[in-house]
Structure formats: structure tokens, C-alpha cells
């Protein structure tokens, strides 16, 4: 029943996710998710779950401490709470993706951008990251307990010596791209609402193009596997998991 995989590099699906929308996909192992900030200044909040067991999920703390980093870029791996790698970052032209600022909520958006309801504004109404992720999680039978600390692709909040955060405007140029490769079958849930620390007063959420591309499994000389000893062990843990559970004959 196993279909022949496509040629490496083949784009199998393309979507344009407009600003302030939510979206999700089950990304099969060895497939990539290529996110493009089409206009510049986008924010893409994302969460990651084991596609077969949603209780196993992206863990911000385990990801950051394993790699001694407070941000994410090429060569980094996104860990689950089970010591396995859900996705690795195989390409990145942006350089810094925020890992700890979370998402905005309805009252924050109303206070910053003003009220704009569907009744008047129709589909241009204001949306917020928290409600958007909850709706998308709801489609998969998940909810508030599953809403954990997310990644904000294309956004940066710099940290000074006192720990104070400074949002970096215009951090992501038009055409910025980050590519994630699934190391295990992974449910990706995302939204494109503005970053919660973006000080802009004008409501102007930016679209994100999503390409699903076949990348093939990580080789022995893979940059993410070799980027640090911790990631080598993370890949080893993930391989052990596939020996036990992989029915696809990898």
C-alpha cells in the first residue's frame, strides 16, 4: 500500500494563508513545510504534535535548553516532551524566530487595534492568536490544555541584560523563508495573527505562503543531526521510536 515517494524537492501542495487566519496540516515524516513571508513583517505562530498521539507535543523548554538557545534558526530541532524531534529547521533566511512570547488574545487585540467585529467588518474583522489556535486545535479534538508555548516564525524580541524584551520591527524581509522537515509524523497547527509585542497600531496582518515539499529523511551527515551532540541523541531517540511504531517500512 505504500506509495512511491516523490522526487526530493517536489512541492506537493501550496496554500496562501491570509493574515490573521488559522490553518493546520498533518506533515508526514520526511516532508517539509516551507513558510514564506510574502510581503515582509509577517508573524506565524505554530504548535507541533505527534500526529498519532497528540499528548506528545512541542516543548519550548526542552527545545531551548537542549540547544542552549533562546531563539530558533537553521540547524535547530524542535523537541517534543518525549525527547524526540518533531521537526528540524533545514533552511532559514530570516535568522531568528521567537520562542517565548506566546500569542495575543481578544482583549489585547481590542486594546491595541480597536474593536472590529464580523458583524460590521465581515472577513476583515480583527482576530487574535489565542482564539485562532483554539479553533484550529478544536478541529483535532484538542483545546485549552493543549495550547502550550508556541514558536513565532518571522518575529524577534531582543533581550537586554536585564531580561527586558524589545520587539524588532521589520525583522523579516519580504520573501523570508524558513523550512521545517518532519522527523516524525507531525500535526502542525498555525495562525498568522500579529505578534503580541508588535507595537503597530494599524491592523495589517500579513499572509504566509505554505509549501509542502518532499525532502527525504535526514541523512547521516545532516546539518541538524550534526549541529550539536544533543541533536544527535535526539535523532537517535526518534529513530528508536520509529523502530517500534513505524509501519511504513522506513
Amino acid at each position, binding site marked *: 500500500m505504500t506509495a512511491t515517494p516523490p522526487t526530493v524537492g517536489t512541492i506537493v501542495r501550496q496554500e496562501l494563508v491570509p493574515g490573521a487566519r488559522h490553518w493546520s496540516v498533518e506533515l508526514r515524516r520526511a516532508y517539509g513545510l516551507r513558510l514564506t513571508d510574502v510581503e515582509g513583517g509577517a508573524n506565524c505562530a505554530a504548535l507541533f504534535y505527534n500526529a498519532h498521539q497528540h*499528548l506528545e507535543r512541542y*516543548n*519550548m*523548554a*526542552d527545545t*531551548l*535548553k*537542549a540547544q*542552549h*538557545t*533562546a*531563539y530558533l534558526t537553521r540547524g535547530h530541532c524542535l*523537541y517534543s*516532551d*518525549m*525527547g*524526540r524531534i518533531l521537526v528540524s529547521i533545514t533552511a532559514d533566511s530570516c535568522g*531568528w524566530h521567537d520562542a*517565548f*512570547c*506566546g*500569542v495575543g*488574545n481578544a*482583549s*489585547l487585540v481590542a486594546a491595541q487595534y480597536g474593536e472590529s467585529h464580523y458583524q460590521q467588518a465581515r472577513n476583515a474583522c480583527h482576530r487574535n492568536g489565542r482564539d485562532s489556535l483554539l479553533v484550529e486545535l478544536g478541529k483535532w479534538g484538542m483545546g*485549552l*490544555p*493543549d*495550547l*502550550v*508555548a*508556541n514558536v513565532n516564525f518571522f518575529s524577534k524580541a*531582543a*533581550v*537586554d*541584560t*536585564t*531580561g*527586558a*524584551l524589545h520587539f524588532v520591527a521589520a525583522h523579516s524581509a519580504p520573501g523570508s523563508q524558513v523550512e521545517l522537515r518532519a522527523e516524525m509524523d507531525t500535526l502542525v497547527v498555525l495562525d498568522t495573527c500579529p505578534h*503580541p*509585542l508588535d507595537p503597530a497600531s494599524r491592523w495589517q496582518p500579513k499572509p504566509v505562503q505554505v509549501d509542502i515539499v518532499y525532502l527525504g529523511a535526514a541523512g547521516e551527515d545532516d546539518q541538524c543531526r550534526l549541529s550539536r551532540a*544533543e541533536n544527535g*541523541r*535526539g535523532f*537517535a*531517540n526518534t529513530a528508536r521510536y520509529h523502530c517500534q511504531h513505524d509501519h511504513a517500512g522506513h
Partner: protein
Amino acid sequence: MTIVVSTLDATSAVFSCDVLAGEPWLYRLAAGQTLRILDLEGNQAVDTLFFNADDPSERYSAQDTIRAQGNLYLGAGTALVSNEGRVMLTITADTCGRHDTLGGACAAESNQVRYALDKWPMHSCRDSFLLACARSHGLLTKRDLPANINFFMNVPVTAEGRLSFEDGISDAGKYVEMQAAMPVLVLVSNCPQLNNPCNAYSPTPVRMIVWD
């Protein structure tokens, strides 16, 4: 870093107990009560989560707390914010100066990644959290465990975005105090980690003291 000394007198406390290293502790704090966590012997990480006692789906949120105060570190004056955007507790006194909320809890699996694949049999905070969940008779499960606070732990982030686990800045007798703004369940794992300096390689007991 701001040092704020408590005005509370231990003789007027309504509750006190010691939590040994490697043990979980689950306690219900009424709205208005103050909890002091006392680092008895110094440099002891205390992994901590908070839940709304009336509805545990509302819980401490590291990312909402960080966003709300625009700062990564917790200290005197920090409002500990929930996943509903509400203040659960406020840190009212602190003689340590800085506490971490990025490092999370140690676990068998993250110890494998961080140190060696054969480290999985070592005791961990996640095991203590899960034991407390099991004892809660369904009130809390693994799903309810987000990124926690590490009181007394020092995890500085540089301008370049590097995160490191440094020797503690706490010492014997240092403490942090927080007042509950709602009824909260306090879930603590007194950290058993032996692989890094977060407990000075020697986990020790902490004291919990509560005032009305």
C-alpha cells in the same frame, strides 16, 4: 535585580512544611494567602506550576507572563499570569533577585537528549509532577503540564540569544514570596537533577510557609 525583604513573621504563619529533594508537593492556597518558598541550604531549583483551584484548565502560562511584563525573568513585582490572561499570584517579596521560566522541568527523556541516552533511569521533576497528577484523582493529567517556573534557578539569556544554565544566585536562607489573587493549586517538584549546577549537584530540602 530587585531585592524586597518580607514583612511577614514566621510565628504568625498558618502552615509550614519541608519538601525534600525529589518529592512533589500539591497544596491549595486560598485567595489572599501568601506562600513563601525558603531555600534552606542554597542553590535549590524549585519547579513550580499554578492552577486555578476552581477550574484547573486555567493555569500558569510562562509565555503570557513574559509577554505581560515584557521581561524574561521573574522577581519582586512580577504578576504570574494565566492562560486566560489573568493574574494568578504576584511576587511580593524576593531575596534571591531572579527566577527562571524558560528552562522547564527535567525529565527522563530530556536528560537523555541533554546528557546521555543511558541517563533515563535517573529521577526527574516530570516524574514528580506525574506522581502528583496521579494522586490528584483525575484533577490534573500530563496534558495539564505546561512550561513551569524554576524558583532560585539562574538561566541568563544573552543579547545574541544564547541561553545557559549558570551556578545559582540563591543561597541558604533566601526566599521568594507570592500572594494569591485567586484560589490556586500549587504544584511543586523539588528538583532532583544531578547533571547540571541548578542544584549545585546536591539537591536539598525547601520549606513552604503560608500566611493568611
